[in-house]
């Protein structure tokens, strides 16, 4: 065995191979030291082998942790997942001794909630499942394991509640997972893009780190995908409304959370339409606003030497770079960038007559109201949405904006998340009326 493995891992310095013998027998073991917990190796193999309290082949046969491996083709991949391979009396066994370096069950950072649970999912799938299982103590919780990625062999876990899950959705998820062709799968977002098509404008899968959101979704019959190596879970199918819904909305005061939900929708509408509306109103229909407002806009724009859409592009470029910069910079310099950027944008550009003061307000509203979306992947999709709307605004003014929004509406209502409608009114459906579109098959 050892010869074969050393030829497989010819250049791997961290491959450990031993041949050991005691009175009874000779065993061979092979593992990659950097992937394995050496103490486990010694506890389970080296010590019992040396002490000889019991015949070692007996130990190996009785302890279910040692799995028999039949196919020599699997060896390489097993070793690479942190297993120890050992050959005892011609039989090959594998023992899981993986030592996974991961963040120690961290607090939520991407999707925070004030009064909600503070623990996020873990980067180790087993820990994540632990967290989920403890929140969802139900025998109906089903799990299936798959590996994706021809190189990365990323392990993924499909979780769902057997009672609530829609079998059609489940089979669609399975078949989509089956058809994924990818070499390396590193992050949840990558899988999401593979599952829902990369050209989609809006996400149809929620990416979350919150175990409470996962538990809620399982309870409502959704399917959850966990990836080894990321602390994010994928939830599907999803509707547009779920992206706008923060987990806090179930924990905090009823009236305030309803207002916040309303505020989020309003924020989304603003962030998508404001730049386009600015162009439309400034350049096509200045009579839209009341006189006083129109004159103060005209006054503040009088020094700006270029057309409105150039102004919009400049400011959007600035604000997007500012957001990007504060994300990329090390945390210590991040705040400096925003201060400097904010000062320059807010004061100097306006005083120099490069942009109007109204445009600065528009830009800030666009940026701020973008951040009220609770689910990060939706927030990023919406960040892009304002650009397609600018084009018709430049050519057709208010008409263009309205038509653009209508096209967006058509797109959203045509969107399906794993066969489920994405954007519609989800009223209560009484058992005896059944839903629209549920046509009897002939």
């Amino acid at each position, binding site marked *: 065995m050892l010869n074969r493995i050393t030829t497989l891992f010819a250049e791997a310095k961290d491959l450990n191979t031993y041949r050991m013998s005691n009175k009874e027998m000779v065993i061979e073991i092979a593992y990659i030291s950097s992937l394995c917990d050496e103490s486990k190796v010694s506890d389970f193999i080296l010590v019992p082998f040396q002490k000889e309290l019991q015949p070692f082949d007996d130990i190996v046969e009785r302890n279910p942790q040692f799995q028999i491996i039949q196919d020599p083709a699997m060896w390489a991949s097993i070793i690479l997942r942190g297993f120890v391979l050992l050959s005892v009396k011609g039989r090959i066994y594998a023992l899981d001794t993986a030592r996974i370096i991961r963040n120690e069950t961290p607090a939520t950072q991407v999707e925070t909630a004030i009064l909600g649970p503070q623990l996020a999912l873990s980067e180790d799938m087993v820990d994540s499942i632990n967290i989920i299982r403890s929140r969802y103590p139900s025998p109906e919780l089903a799990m299936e394991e798959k590996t994706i990625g021809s190189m990365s062999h990323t392990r993924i876990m499909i979780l769902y509640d057997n009672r609530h899950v829609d079998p059609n959705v489940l089979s669609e998820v399975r078949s989509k997972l089956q058809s994924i062709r990818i070499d390396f799968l590193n992050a949840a977002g990558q899988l999401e893009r593979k599952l829902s098509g990369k050209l989609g404008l809006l996400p149809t899968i929620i990416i979350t780190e919150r175990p409470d959101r996962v538990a809620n979704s399982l309870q409502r019959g959704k399917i959850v995908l966990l990836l080894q190596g990321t602390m994010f879970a994928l939830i599907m199918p999803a509707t547009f409304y779920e992206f706008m819904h923060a987990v806090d909305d179930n924990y905090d005061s009823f009236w305030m959370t309803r207002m916040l939900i309303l505020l989020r929708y309003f924020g989304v509408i603003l962030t998508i339409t404001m730049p386009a509306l600015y162009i439309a109103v400034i350049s*096509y229909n*200045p009579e839209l606003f009341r*006189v006083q407002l129109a*004159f103060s806009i*005209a*006054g503040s724009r009088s020094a700006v030497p270029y057309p409105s859409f150039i102004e919009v592009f400049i400011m959007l470029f600035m604000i997007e770079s500012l957001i990007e910069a504060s994300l990329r910079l090390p945390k210590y310099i991040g705040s400096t960038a925003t201060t400097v950027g904010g000062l320059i944008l807010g004061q100097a550009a306006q005083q120099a007559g490069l942009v109007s003061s109204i445009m600065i307000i528009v830009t800030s509203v666009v940026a701020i109201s973008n951040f009220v979306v609770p689910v990060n992947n939706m927030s990023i999709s919406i960040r892009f949405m304002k650009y397609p709307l600018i084009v018709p605004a430049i050519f057709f003014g208010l008409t263009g904006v309205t038509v653009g929004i209508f096209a967006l509406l058509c797109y959203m209502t045509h969107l399906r998340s794993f066969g489920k409608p994405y954007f519609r009114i989800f009223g209560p459906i009484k058992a005896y009326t059944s839903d629209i579109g549920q046509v009897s098959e002939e």
Partner: protein
Amino acid sequence: MRQNKLIQLAIVLPILLATLSGCGFKDIDKRFFVVAAGIDRPVNNPNRYLVTLKLAVPSPKIEPGSAKAQVESVEASTIAEAVRLIKSRVDKELDFGHCKLYLLGDRLSSQYYPDAMDWISRRRDIQNVAYIAIGRPDAKTVIEMNPPTERFPGNTLFLQLGKDGTESAYIVPVFSFDFIRKAQERGIDPVLPIMNKEKEEYVISKLALLNKNKTVATLSPNETEIYNQISHHMKKSTVTATINGQSLVLAVNKISSRYRIVKEANGSHILKMKIYISGIFEEAPLGVYSSNWSKLEQKFNEHYEAEANHLLTKIQQAEVDPFGFGLRYRATHAGSDQTWKAWLSIYPQLKFEIKANIKIDGTGISD
């Protein structure tokens, strides 16, 4: 494949659009907003029009007195031509979208106004909720004036005429759609407020009564107030009466009026109008609290009835119908052309019977 096609589309489509369109794109700072327009007949040339436009010059500063405006005025044989001529004199595109006031010159309105009205009603960019008024001595003088404390050009005009700012019983704002409908309606005639220039202020306190062609009478400020009370139930108004040489003024709290046109046994028609007003003293001699209120109310009633009667008779004699008595008659009688013809013969002989019912609610905070 699909992605390539999309990218192609993303490139081709804007180019196509750019070649097709791009017209109509005009930034707000490349436009001149007309805030008020005046239409006059020149003194020496009564067949031509003198059009005066007040153009707002937006300024980044917003403080009292910072409003700047440019006034252009041109004489031409039609209004449209005059506007075109003004266009050739200014550097930015004229935009009537924010024009809130159309002033008809006194000479124009007392000659023949329907032509000017036609222009106002036909242009697509003229608001239906623009105010129309008569400028005295002419529209140009009123428009040329710049009130010294304006924040925005024309702001004084908008606020003074509209309900956002001052609400005065002497100002009867008339929207253009209201004016146009009354100018063609059978059974009601238009009225227009008269704007005077006095020093650096606009004075709006009189009302012009118009028939279908021209101005026929003018109401004094007092009569305007009564018109406003009867017709628009204007609450921010007063009722006065003189008792023993002392004048008492009642600030109106509540006001309502009703009228019916009744056919008498002898075939003549009587308009029976009832006016209910209640209010609080604003001006009265001390001790009015202890005096007999019903007596005071009686005096108020008599006074008011006389004034209202005088107003209605004056209107009837001018052969106009700004209250819409004719429309009411049509509304309450069978729908046919006969009704309208009947009304035409009824109105000149119509008698008025006015009952005022004025109630004193209190004497203010002192007795």
